[in-house]
């Protein structure tokens, strides 16, 4: 994989506000990359420094081996899909899509209508060319914005929260279409989103950002299974946190977890590193289980009392209390045939496995 975008020591200040703190980041050719984080974490600012709408206060942005310092947005090999889509309301759909071709001397005028039609076909809007842009629905605007950017065959397509304005059903449909589109054109996509599920579904790699810094950069599975810190774990999916005492941190990490007891885990389960002393372990709701009557397990068990039951149809979420832990622990269970749904205050046993623990500093 060839690196395409290289950010080195990027800092951005707005007056006293430190928007980007020493960002080092390499994004590869053909990659679907996501910048994920809560609002105000700097993910949009980072995207805009790549696009050229914001300068950097320090550090460098390289695209395709060229330093972008002093290169304005119109001269960069990037195109952007804006959060508001920014469809030009005074032009037709075809004129919108052809807009970027006007400054391209290398593309003959006679080729342009066919290119526009191809681009519209690619996003599923074939035959919409003559429509007025301001009469389109949200999903259609989104597609026009994509066609308008992709027709220029940029090295990088930047997507600034492109799905946030759509309803849930449309959003899920567009997620799939965007993945398909990205595989089809092979262009690097950089997606900014605050929706962890969207990032997990779509990306090859995700950078999780907090307060202008990258908290963790990994592929979706590693990010989900091995979060390096509590705030990454909290942001991606649901996770239970239990206080734990690390008693030894050599080849294997020896732990005493509140409520669960003593266990040992390999170093991989402490991606953020582990030191002897008090720490936290995280465990996902689906990695825990409830031992129903008539079922058996070879894993470890701990007594618990049901505190809260939330029924989702395919799943049931139980909040249970175990001795020695203050906060209730959430467990998600598939509602399989023959399995009852427990009631509040029922006595039960929780199944756990040391392989599912993540040790965090």
């Amino acid at each position: 994989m060839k690196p395409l975008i290289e950010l080195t020591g990027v800092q951005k200040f707005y007056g006293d506000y430190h928007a980007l703190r020493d960002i080092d980041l390499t994004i590869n050719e053909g990659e679907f990359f996501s910048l994920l984080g809560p609002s105000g974490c700097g993910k949009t600012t980072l995207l805009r420094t790549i696009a050229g709408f914001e300068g950097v206060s320090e550090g460098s942005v390289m695209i395709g081996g060229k330093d972008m310092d002093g290169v304005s947005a119109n001269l960069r090999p990037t195109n952007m899909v804006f959060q508001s889509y920014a469809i030009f309301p005074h032009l037709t759909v075809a004129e919108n899509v052809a807009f970027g071709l006007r400054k391209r001397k290398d593309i003959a005028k006679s080729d342009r209508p066919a290119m526009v039609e191809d681009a519209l076909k690619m996003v599923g809007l074939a035959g919409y060319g003559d429509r007025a842009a301001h009469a389109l629905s949200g999903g259609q605007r989104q597609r026009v914005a994509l066609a308008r950017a992709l027709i220029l065959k940029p090295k990088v397509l930047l997507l600034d929260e492109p799905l946030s304005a759509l309803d849930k059903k449309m959003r899920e449909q567009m997620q799939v279409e965007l993945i398909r589109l990205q595989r089809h054109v092979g262009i690097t996509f950089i997606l900014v989103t605050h929706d962890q599920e969207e990032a997990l579904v779509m990306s090859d790699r995700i950078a999780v950002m907090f307060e202008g810094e990258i908290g963790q950069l990994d592929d979706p599975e590693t990010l989900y299974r091995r979060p390096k810190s509590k705030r990454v774990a909290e942001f991606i999916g649901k996770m239970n946190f239990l206080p734990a005492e690390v008693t030894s941190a050599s080849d294997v990490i020896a732990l005493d977890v509140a409520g669960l007891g003593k266990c040992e885990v390999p170093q991989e389960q402490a991606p953020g590193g582990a030191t002897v002393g008090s720490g936290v372990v995280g465990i996902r709701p689906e990695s825990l289980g409830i031992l129903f009557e008539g079922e058996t397990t070879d894993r470890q068990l701990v007594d618990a009392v049901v505190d809260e039951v939330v029924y989702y149809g395919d799943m049931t979420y139980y909040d249970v209390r175990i001795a020695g832990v203050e906060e209730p622990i959430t467990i998600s269970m598939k509602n399989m045939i023959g399995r009852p749904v427990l009631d509040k205050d029922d006595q039960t046993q929780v199944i756990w496995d040391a392989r599912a623990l993540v040790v965090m500093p």
Partner: protein
Amino acid sequence: MSLRFYTIAYLVFLYAPIMLLPIFAFNDATIIAFPLSGFTTDWFGELMTTKALHDAVGNSLFIALTTAALSTCLGMCAARAGAMPHFRFKAGIMGFVMLPLVLPEIIVAVSLLVVAVQILGLGLSNWTIIAAHTLICTPFSIAILNGAFQNLDPSLEEAALDLGESRWSAFWSVIFPLVMPGVISSFLIAFTISLDEFIIAFFLTGANPTMPVYIWSLLRFPASLPVVMALGTILVALSILLLTIAEILRRRGIAKAGGKDTGGFL
């Protein structure tokens, strides 16, 4: 009920005198009084043949067109700056720019006369009037264009830049077409204000009077009153037409840019 009566009374009080203009403009008598004596279009005919009037109308049109162009250009610059997210002392500067809107015209007229004649040593001409009219029309232009510019999604300009346009060409290919209705609206309102402005023109006029100044001079001769009425009728009709066009364009522009109507002058 009483509120409705009040509103009707208010409207009658406001518009009745104006309604008298066309009535006496078509009345076959030199004396402006009821009962009406008959229908004539002679007074309009007389308008067509009075050379001094033609000169005055020509002056006024030249002044009004130039003023409208200048104040719309200045208004565009100010509104564009006002739509930018941050620059120093923005609120203060915008306040001062809008101040001529509330300054008494007579004060503006006298001080400009002193500046032009005593300090700068300029002769009075159409250009001194244009300068003064631009001063009083620009705030109106800014108010109208502010609405047009602030309703624009800032991403539109960025999208144009992103698609390869320079700042200059992005302005002309995206922003200008979208604020065009506001530009026309501003042009028409500035034109109307300048065309019938009297006080400043009276103070600053050179050898050639503007139309309002000429009309005022006619009032000394009772015989020419019906001619003034005829001229007034044409002016009222023209003003209503222009302001209606301006308002329609302003509303259409807001609808086009997908913004919310925050109220104009009408």
